[in-house]
């Protein structure tokens, strides 16, 4: 799709440029100038975004990396109390923060739970989304009703849904426990017991994530030509074989994308954990992101340096994940 801006479509523009004042010098123009003259409009078009990303993402990022090598906390950063301006007094400590984090069990505990959380959320919502999409992708009475109903969790803003689930999960008087009590089952401490809390947050996140998977998968299914299924039936393939050898390969492109996207979303899923359990009970449901947040905004004194170091580690993990994933896809013949 992309056109090399040095050729073809850009040819007309090139011609003008070649005779422009820049070339009159008669000498070999530098490669830079030549590149500038052929690509200047492409660069001009991306300039605003590059500038914005540079200023409000790049600068804070560099500063975050720098902070992570200091011992900055609430007590020694630059601040103003009343009329007194107190300059920053934190100093560089090299890689001590990273060393401390990696040697401490907390990081590995949180990492393990984050991986469990990401894998189970993505896997469950993928399987459920795929199954439901398969059911919806056929002649069916009330199809659009089912579709609307199943998409609803995505349409409601996530923080609203999370509050709703807190209402349902309430241990003493939530609806879920009332229903269980009706069946003679003891109240379940949905959010107050470490194991149940983990299951609950995963359940809520799957509930939130299925609609996205469902819609994406439906789109993918509809792009698979029906003739393939006809041909397979003629050859005597049963339903499972058709699913395994036509549907799944046909969905590969779209599923690889949604899995990548939703893995990253889930890994960084702040609102569900923060609003549902605040990472509790204890720190049972604290994922890496919420823990880093807790370090800088909840604990006292606020540990800015530690939080920044956690942030950098999280970013490294995510980049690694994206690179590995892209490479795996390219091996299968994906273009990008």
């Amino acid at each position, binding site marked *: 799709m992309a056109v090399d801006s040095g050729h073809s479509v850009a040819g007309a523009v090139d011609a003008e440029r070649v005779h422009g004042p820049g070339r009159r010098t008669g000498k070999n123009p530098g490669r830079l100038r030549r590149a500038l003259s052929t690509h200047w409009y492409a660069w001009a078009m991306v300039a605003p975004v590059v500038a914005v*990303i540079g200023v409000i993402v790049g600068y804070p990022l560099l500063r975050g990396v720098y902070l992570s090598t200091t011992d900055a906390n609430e007590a020694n950063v630059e601040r103003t109390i009343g009329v007194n301006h107190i300059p920053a007094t934190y100093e560089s400590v090299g890689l001590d923060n990273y060393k401390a984090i990696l040697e401490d069990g907390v990081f590995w505990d949180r990492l393990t739970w984050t991986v469990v959380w990401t894998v189970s959320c993505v896997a469950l919502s993928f399987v459920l989304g795929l199954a439901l999409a398969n059911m919806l992708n056929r002649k069916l009475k009330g199809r659009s009703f089912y579709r609307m109903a199943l998409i609803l969790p995505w349409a409601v803003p996530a923080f609203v849904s999370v509050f709703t689930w807190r209402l349902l999960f309430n241990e003493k008087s*939530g609806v879920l426990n009332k229903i269980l009590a009706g069946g003679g089952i003891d109240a379940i401490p949905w959010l107050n017991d470490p194991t149940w809390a983990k299951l609950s947050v995963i359940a809520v996140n799957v509930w939130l994530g299925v609609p996205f998977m469902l819609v994406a998968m439906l789109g993918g299914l509809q792009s698979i030509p029906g003739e393939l299924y006809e041909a397979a039936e003629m050859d005597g393939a049963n339903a499972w074989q058709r699913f395994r050898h036509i549907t799944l390969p046909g969905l590969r492109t779209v599923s690889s994308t*949604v899995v990548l996207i939703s893995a990253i979303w889930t890994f960084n899923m702040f609102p569900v954990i923060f609003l549902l359990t605040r990472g509790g009970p204890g720190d049972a449901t604290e994922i890496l992101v919420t823990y880093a947040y807790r370090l800088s905004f909840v604990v006292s004194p606020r540990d800015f340096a530690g939080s920044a170091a956690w942030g950098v580690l999280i970013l490294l993990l995510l980049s690694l994940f994206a690179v590995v994933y892209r490479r795996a896809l390219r091996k299968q013949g994906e273009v990008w």
Partner: protein
Amino acid sequence: MTAVKTTSITPEAPRKRGRVRPRGERGPLASVALHVTLLIASAVAVLPPLWLLVTSFKPKSEAFSTAIVKDFTFGNYDHVLNETEFLSWVGNSLFVVGLTTVIGVFISATTGYAVSRFKFPGMRPLMWLLLITQMFPVAVLIVPLYNLLASMELLNQPMGLVLTYLTIAVPFSAWMMKGYFDTIPVEIDEAGRVDGLNPFGTFWRLIMPLAKPGLAVTGFYSFITGWAEVAYASAFMTGEENLTLAGGLQTFVNQYTSDWGSLTAAAVIVAVPAAVIFGFVQRHLVSGLTAGATKS
């Protein structure tokens, strides 16, 4: 998936019964199984929001009663609208998220176009930059941004939050717009060029008008992303009248109070318009999200 298996159309079975079932038709048992499964799934999807709606009409003291609606009342809505800061939260949210969306979509449209149409040095790094920025965890940026905003005295200011949300909106919108521009035939550009438009003219006068649906969807999606953002809003905004919705709703139910009646009423007011608009654009959403990431 159960349904896939149950729709077995093996050649032998129908012949025994003397009637050949046409292709794609289900047996009655399979139909029932399909509908039951879908009904259960729909119920799971719909009941929590529905329960929220029901609870919002109950008197405060009855928030947890299991009765559907015993004493129907608009009291919660009345209280939320008239006696809390809810409306100023709505205003803050609208201002912050609206401004973010407009700025974000506006400056990222050109980038999406350039990345979609031209090959230029620095394109691949830029694509990676956009992809990686999108997955930036809150945790990396939150502390430096907090310090940055503090030094610019923008903490607790809507403008500070706008700046912050641009870090989310810009990479994402650029990526989505690229996906949308990819679907516009390149022949249109060529025609424009042949007729003497320069690349900016082509973009502005030919492609932008065609991309209006894409702009709308991108704008909407970055709107609802910002609308539901919690981490930055909770960290940067304090003081009841400065909060945005995500932060404000937290004040109804916390360690000290649990005013579920007000919370549910506020939540319904927030959710209904979002859900309705969502219904209109959701079809385009996924194609936008996935197209940007798969094509190049």
